[in-house]
């Protein structure tokens, strides 16, 4: 019987069994290395991003703990005016240099009632695409909440509604 943590190399692709997503396949160059673990998960450093259906959400799946996967989203889909200020120390820790080549996404919390789902705009994850280093940063902007509702009161999805100022 194979253990869930086992990875098998299949030529270019690696396989991993995620508790939430089942068997997933990815190339080694898709692996993300966190320079510090996500807050609360200090020992988990290696992750991969897997599409959630064909939409804007993805799963940040740990490659070290098959039970850990975070739903994440490109924040600009819901908050087009989002302008996070990443602290200099984090830019340095990630080895980010001009011309910046990075990706940024936010963790999503989905409670039992999905109309109450929230996005963490205060602590996005930044990935340096040149070296695959990642970090959850705490943006300097004071106005972005850790739990920003996606939907305004009433549960209807609105363009730009429920968006924070600034």
């Amino acid at each position, binding site marked *: 019987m194979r253990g869930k943590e086992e990875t098998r190399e299949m030529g270019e692709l690696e396989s991993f069994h995620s508790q*939430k997503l089942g068997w997933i396949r990815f190339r080694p160059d898709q692996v993300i290395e966190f*320079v*510090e673990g*996500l*807050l*609360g*998960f200090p020992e988990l450093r290696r992750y991969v991003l897997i599409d*959630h*259906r064909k*939409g804007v959400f993805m799963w940040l799946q740990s490659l070290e703990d098959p039970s*850990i*996967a*975070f*739903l994440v989203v490109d924040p600009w889909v819901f908050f087009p005016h989002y302008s996070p200020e990443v602290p200099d*120390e984090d830019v*340095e*820790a990630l080895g980010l240099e001009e011309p910046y080549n990075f990706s940024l996404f936010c*963790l*999503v*919390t*989905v*409670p*039992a*009632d*999905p*109309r109450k*789902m*929230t996005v*963490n705009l*205060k*602590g996005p994850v930044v990935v340096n695409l040149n070296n695959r280093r990642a970090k*959850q940063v*705490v943006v300097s902007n004071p106005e972005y909440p*850790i*739990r920003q509702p996606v939907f305004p009161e009433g*549960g209807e*999805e609105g363009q730009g509604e429920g968006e924070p100022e600034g």
Partner: protein
Amino acid sequence: MLVLTRKIMESVVIGDDIEVYILEIKGDRVRLGIKAPREVSVHRKEIYEEILRSNIEAASASPEATREMDRLLDGKPPTGEKGR
């Protein structure tokens, strides 16, 4: 907890390479300056704790909740309700 008294512009060294300076004292507020290597994060404690809690919740999204989210984004009624 180690308790020390410092005056303005004095500092405390933690470990080998973290230094905390008292820069200014105004009423009930203290302005701190923190020197730490770039790989050490420094946050206001409440923010750190809240993000930590939020991360843990985000990791606990149940398959049912994710399915309901998908239904919501597809414009379908929640499971258990009749269509509108």
